[in-house]
């Protein structure tokens, strides 16, 4: 149980681990960007009065929310191609699985955010002659997004941690490289400890930084700039 070798090993394999971290981060960022847009779309559709729009969206959201991410990654990579006739490279399969799951979660978060907006806001907007799409875009969604900032951050962290499972379809992320190195060196305790620390430090840095950012952001401006930032 030689713990003292960890720093040396981490240094020795630094480029491998860093390239893994790059993959992990890019998977998270791309998946979350897709999910933030798609989640809003699915949220709005799942609130539609038209059943033909609403039900498929609810089914999609529920399926991807209630399926383990490991199963999703494997399913998207090995089962989905047979269903739709298109084969993805492992990296793309991973993004699809991660993005779909985050879409499912975010769709529900968006919905909670929109439903938490006071009915009076709808009344006020309609009484000024705003149509439904207009008032959603200008009045309701901007307010919902502000309330959702913590939930978005939370989902970002969840997505980041979920990326570790993509190593099962051989996407070269941190975890994949750790497995490879362990197979070569049999130093499982040291290598997996390095991997765990990397995940921890990255997640911790992201969430602490985002928390500080949003705190100072909300302190300095009680909302208005959000609107112009998103317009």
């Amino acid at each position, binding site marked *: 149980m030689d713990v003292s070798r960890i720093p040396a090993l981490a240094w020795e394999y630094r480029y491998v681990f860093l390239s893994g971290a790059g993959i992990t981060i890019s998977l998270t960022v791309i998946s979350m960007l897709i999910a933030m847009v798609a989640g809003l779309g699915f949220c709005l559709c799942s609130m539609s009065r038209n059943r033909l729009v609403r039900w498929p969206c609810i089914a999609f959201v529920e399926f991807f929310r209630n399926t383990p991410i490991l199963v999703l990654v494997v399913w998207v990579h090995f089962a989905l191609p047979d269903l739709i006739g298109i084969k993805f490279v492992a990296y793309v399969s991973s993004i699809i699985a991660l993005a779909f799951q985050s879409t499912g979660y975010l769709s529900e978060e968006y919905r909670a955010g929109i439903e938490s907006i*006071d009915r*009076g*806001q709808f*009344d*006020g*907007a*309609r*009484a*000024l*002659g*705003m*149509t*439904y799409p*207009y008032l959603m875009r*200008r*009045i309701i969604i*901007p*307010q919902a997004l*502000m309330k959702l900032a913590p939930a978005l951050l939370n989902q970002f962290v969840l997505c980041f941690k979920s990326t570790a499972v993509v190593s099962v379809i051989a996407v070269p992320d941190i975890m994949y490289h750790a497995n490879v190195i362990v197979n070569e060196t049999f130093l499982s305790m040291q290598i997996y400890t390095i991997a765990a620390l990397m995940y921890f430090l990255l997640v911790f840095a992201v969430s602490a930084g985002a928390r500080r950012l949003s705190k100072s952001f909300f302190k300095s401006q*009680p*909302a*208005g700039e*959000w*609107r112009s930032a998103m317009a």
Partner: protein
Amino acid sequence: MTGIAFSAVHKRYGRNEVLKGIDLHVASGATLSILGQSGSGKTTLIRCINALETIQTGHIKVGDVTITPDHLESNSKRLSRANVAHYRARCGMVFQGFNLFPHMTVLQNLIEAPIGIRGLVRKEAIRRADALLADIGLPEKRLDYPASLSGGQQQRVAIARALMMEPDVLLFDEPTSALDPVTTIEVLALIKRLSSGTRTTIIVTHEIEFARQVSSHVAFMKDGLVEEHGTTDEFFSRPRSAATRAFLSQFNASTGDRHASL
């Protein structure tokens, strides 16, 4: 010029019938106060005028627009959704809870709909907003957010926001119920000043003395029906129905002198 006429209007929420056959005529340019206890249907009544609520039977004529149970029409032509929205913009509404948009500054609250809905040029909208803000005595608050204003200031901004659309009809839904006595006075004074114009104004209120001072007509509602309706003089000096007399007598004793300053 926009008169309003209710004919046999019924409105239900599920099994709860809130309006039980309303017949009411408001002349163009009149200022009508609607009195009555909570739950008598006053708020629902004015929400039907700008189609925030749908009705089950009867119809309401507002100027050249007719509101029926399943659509709005003008000159026998059914209004599209966009035109219904435009119709609503002609009926300014001020709410009990202000309903200002908290993520926008006072100025943005005022110019959002005129620019986005009416297509007003931004510069012109801002000019008009600044004039209104000066008029309601809050020019220095233009870049503040609603949360930093007092209740009375928020309600004055809400009134200005409604006026920005230059509505033909102005609806007040218990505009001072959420306010303390002092700020109530500043809001009532503003409404009083506004209601002297040619616009048709309907005010749902619990402020009886205020109703007496500002309205040309008063209606009293009870259990989903208009119990009494007449000119302000008639209403207060010769109420016909026993329920109206009973309602007024409760308040005669408690009429505060805070309205003396209006």
